[in-house]
């Protein structure tokens, strides 16, 4: 079996000399992203918790986007998705992403609807 690794990350911006140095590079990057998340989670800057983008706090958008960034590098570099064929990559990623987005959309809309029913309905819950 051939074990050819693609050694550049950030769209070719950073190219590593060997697979091992690439692993450590990705590890450093993941730690950095986690550290940013933790610091933001402790500080919770007012500017980010009081502004909203598409009905969600800006801070929460930042957390979710950083999570997806981490997920990308774990899948692409640790799980070697970068080295798989295009067909393999797409059949795994597109399937999962489509189904998960659909599920989240449906369930969150439904949850929000039930929240409204509880809020304006005749049954009292605050006792």
């Amino acid at each position, binding site marked *: 079996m051939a074990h050819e690794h693609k050694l550049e990350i950030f769209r070719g911006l950073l190219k590593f000399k060997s697979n091992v140095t690439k692993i450590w590079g990705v590890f450093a990057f993941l730690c950095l992203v986690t550290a940013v998340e933790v610091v933001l989670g402790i500080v919770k800057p007012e500017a980010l918790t009081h502004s909203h983008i598409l009905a969600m706090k800006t801070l929460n958008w930042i957390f979710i986007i950083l*999570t997806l960034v981490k997920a990308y590098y774990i899948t692409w*570099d*640790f799980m070697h998705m970068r080295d798989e064929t295009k067909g393999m990559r797409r059949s795994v990623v597109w399937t999962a992403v489509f189904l998960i987005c659909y599920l989240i959309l449906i369930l969150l809309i439904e949850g929000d609807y039930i929240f409204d029913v509880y809020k304006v309905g005749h049954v009292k819950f605050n006792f």
Partner: protein
Amino acid sequence: MEATLAKTGTEEKTWGGGNRPLNASYGKMMMWFFIVSDALTFSGFLAAYGFSRFKFIETWPIADEVFTHVPFLHGQEHPMIYVAFMTFVLIMSSVTMVLAVDAGHHLNKAKVTLYMFLTIIGGLIFVGSQAWEWATFIKGDYGAVQTKGGNIIQFVNAEGHRVALRDFVVAAPTEREQLERKDGFWFQKEGSLPTYTLNDVISGFDAHPDMLIRTQTLNEHGHKTVLSRGESLQMLKNNGKHVVEGANLHENEYGSPLFADFFFFITGFHGFHVLTGVIINIIIFFNVILGTYEKRGSYEIVEKVGLYWHFVDLVWVFVFTFFYLV
């Protein structure tokens, strides 16, 4: 391997069977099938968590107030620190796993052994941390009172800081005993009784005129609403039902019982994955030592179990975000 396969003589043709468009071995392919379906299972859980949270969006517990404990630092509040450590441990064990895979590609038995060992240690530290996190959550911290409507009310002082029941309630002598199987009919029993009764809490609250009650409802700043002294007394005396200490599947001193249910279910399912991952890693580790893969001339099995291990890490990244950050 080649010798056992029947040849049709048409392997070069597109549909002849010799074509491998995905260029992945059978085992790796099946591992990806499993990972995709398992990812959908976890998404189902996390989406259900999102559903319940949206349903009770105005009363959901604030994670930073729930997970504040760090081992050996008693009575101090450090939200995020311990879970950040757990995340770091899991990412680190992912790194040693991928290094083991890389050493496997070079057929370097000594290095595979070392890295597999480190991965197992990382996994064990993570599972242990999770067990500690569970124990702390189950034991609880401040205690609270559940109302007739099933809501949780908590106690704060004039500055708005939480006050634990043990700091203002004195347990009065009580006749009430825990019902055990030996006392009534054989099928009758109950869980352990709370340390204090509701009446103890009410008299303790009366004796401390600066204390107030905090409800589950979040105000526009994202903090829990604190009632005035008059409202607090009324709320406790009219609506209070029983004392809650810690969390289980029925009640939860931090707020909605659903929060505890999802916490136990999702982190439990994830912890179970880590545990099975550790067990599989141990099996592979011994096989590496015995030289099984050395003889086989391929360490591909390390790659397959590595895929599973990274997947567990991947799931944790999402659990971390949706349980502790958002």
